[in-house]
Structure formats: C-alpha cells, structure tokens
C-alpha cells in the first residue's frame, strides 16, 4: 500500500540528528514494549508480514507523530484485537475483562534464548527454476496495490539489473493477508541513481532493492 511507511525519497523530515552514545532505550516503557511485542508475536497467531502491514496501516498522521516503539504498540493492539486475544473493553479497563482466544504457544522465560537464537527463517523451496540470472536487465512493475507490498514506490516502473539471485522467500504480499506463503525467488536488483531520481541525481549513486520475482519483468 502507498502508506506512510513508504518513505524513500520523501522530503521535509529534516536532518537525521544522530544521538551520541545513544542508549538502547530512552524510557523504561520501551523495554517492556520490545518484550511485549516479541512475546505476543511468539504466540504464533500472526506472521512478520501481517505485523508490518498493521504498522503501515496506521493513519499517516498517527504514524509520523509516533516513535517506532509507539508504532509497534499501536499495531500490536490492533493485531491482538483482530485475533481475539484482547478487546476494547480490556484496553479501556487496563485489565483482563473478556476471555481470550487460545494461543498456539506461550513463550516462557527459559525458552527465550533458544527462540531468539533460532529466529524465524523465511527462506523456502520454490518449485520452479529462477526466471532471471545475474546480469539480466529487468524492469520493475508499476502497480499500486491496496494491500501489503515490499516494492517501494520510488522503485516501481524502473529499469535495473539483476545483481544476484538470492533464494526462495515467503511472499509478503500474500502472506501478510493470510493468503499463504507462496514463496518466490528473490533477487538483488540495482538501479542507477539517475534512473530513479532523474534530473539532478547524484551521478555516483546506485541503489538496490531485494525484489520478489513477480515484481519484475524482462527489459
């Protein structure tokens, strides 16, 4: 979706302002926000693509006014309600009022190290051979889906070159909506800065994205 998350090339946000010796957390609640988000995700009711889509579906004014941990928590409340774990009455009361759906699993403290070490690999076998090979010229599709996609707007309808064939990966555009993993080949596609930004582009700039096969056409 052409949502607030799709930031590449947007203007007006000001300087980056890196913070010297930045701490990992800027308030105690951010520690709990990280942990609540990860432990709730560990119930297994939604996948990473659905959670990303919940975040980018926040109203743009809300998204831009929120820190990233605030975005996580606001999206987490939506996911918990959608999957029947929490109700608006619970949230309004600040305590459990309504019964909850049964989780697939609950992450216990003793299992955290193993779960974090294992992660959540997203590579999957793909039944068909890769359509492109390194060096192939390609053009990204021009589309504007209302659902989740990982092809940023700035890289749509652009000519680039396949730099590397990566692996088969879960397709976020379907997985985010509960329509299955439908794995596809993923490629690193590199574009000249001038192809993306046109007039005035930095002549020494190139930008790459990692693109699922269905985002690409031969050029």
């Amino acid at each position, binding site marked *: 979706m052409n949502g607030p*998350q*799709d*930031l*590449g*090339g*947007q*203007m007006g*946000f000001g*300087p*980056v302002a*890196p*913070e010297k010796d930045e701490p*990992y957390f800027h*308030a*105690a*609640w951010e*520690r*709990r926000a990280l*942990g*609540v988000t*990860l*432990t709730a995700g*560990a119930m297994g009711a939604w996948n990473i693509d659905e959670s*990303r889509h919940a*975040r*980018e579906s926040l109203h743009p004014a809300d998204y831009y006014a929120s820190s*990233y941990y605030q975005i996580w928590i606001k999206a987490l409340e939506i996911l918990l309600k959608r999957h029947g774990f*929490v109700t608006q009455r619970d*949230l309004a009361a*600040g*305590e*459990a009022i309504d*019964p*909850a759906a049964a989780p697939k699993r*609950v*992450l*216990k*403290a003793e*299992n*955290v190290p193993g*779960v*974090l070490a294992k*992660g*959540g*690999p*997203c590579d999957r076998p793909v039944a068909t051979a890769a359509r492109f090979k390194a060096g192939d010229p390609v053009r990204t599709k021009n589309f504007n889906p209302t659902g989740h996609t*990982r092809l*940023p707007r700035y890289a749509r309808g652009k000519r680039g070159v396949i730099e590397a064939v*990566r*692996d088969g*990966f*879960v397709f976020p555009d379907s997985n985010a909506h509960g329509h299955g993993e439908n794995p596809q080949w*993923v490629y690193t596609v*590199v574009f000249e800065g001038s192809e993306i930004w046109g007039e005035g582009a930095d002549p020494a700039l*190139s*930008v*790459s*994205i*990692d*693109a699922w096969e269905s985002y690409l056409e031969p050029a």
Partner: protein
Amino acid sequence: MSHDHDHDNELDPFAARVRALETILTQKGLIDPAAIDVIVDTYETKIGPRNGARVVAKAWSDPAYADWLKRDATAAIESLSYSGRQGEHMQAVFNTEDTHNLVVCTLCSCYPWSVLGLPPVWYKAPPYRSRAVIDPRGVLEEFGLTLPADKKIRVWDSTAELRYLVVPMRPEGTEGWSEERLAELVSRDAMIGTGLARQPA
C-alpha cells in the same frame, strides 16, 4: 525495574498504555513477564555491535574468512555464534577504494539484530529512511562523513529478509594487530555505512 514502571506510569500516558497491555496479556496467561525480562537483558547486555565488530575484525585478519563472509555471510557469521533473530539471512558488503556502501530500510526498520543489536532511533525514523536513498551524501555529512564527490555510493534498501552488514575498509597502520584490538576500531555506524572505521590513535 518495578520502581521505573510506577514512575513512568504517573508521568507518561504511553508508559501506562504499555503497562496496561502487559497486564492484560499476563492476566490472560498469554505472555510470561519473565520472558520479557530475558529478552530485554539479551538485547541490552548480550547482543550488540560488538558482535559485528568481531566479524569485521576477523574478516580483516583472515582472508579465507573474508572470502567466506563474502560468499555466505549467514554461515560465516554463524560460525562465530552470532546468528539468530533478524540475522537469519545475512549478506556482507565490503567497502572498497571505489565504493562506499550504506544500508537502509525505507519501508520499516529492518536491521541485522544478531550482529548489531537493536537499531538506533535515527535508523527507524523518517529523516534517515526518506533521504538515505536520494541524498546519501547529505545524510553522511550529518554524521560528519564527507566522501569525495567521485566516490561511488551504493545504497542497499533492505526490502526483503536479507540483512546487510557493511565491512568497512581496514585502517592503515594496523598491521599485525590482534582481532580484539582491531574490533575496537569498528563502530556500529561503520557497519551501517554512516561512518568509517576509526583511525588508530
């Protein structure tokens, strides 16, 4: 920890909101608050940019390891036991005399947690995410890094599940240094591409 909570709860409505959510989920038996403590401790004290710095230092010291890192970063990093969440599929990109590499996630906050830990706020915020792909030179200036105009810049937008680690160039004057000593020169920003390796003092 509980004192911090009470303190924040009185002052900050968002702290109260997070605490309410944790309370509800705990009361319903959906989460284990002790698991949150372990997660926080892991990312505050165990997993951070020192991991990535060790990878870079080894690559500087050991050409065979550097070659492996180039070909199969996931396996090469796993051999140092730095694999895991948000580092399942790694790619290492090497700075050269010609090309400087810079990593961004324009669409969210994808970042190689297993080697760099949790991302800094600026990495997740709109100024960096919007400008890294269109004005990387201007962004680097804000980090105090001015590159020659003819130095090529390659920006890697982390749009899929590959996570990128920049291997900065090894500073001159470090011949014969141990990996431990070399690792001290490798900052987090150097491994994102918003900095270079520190010069030896």
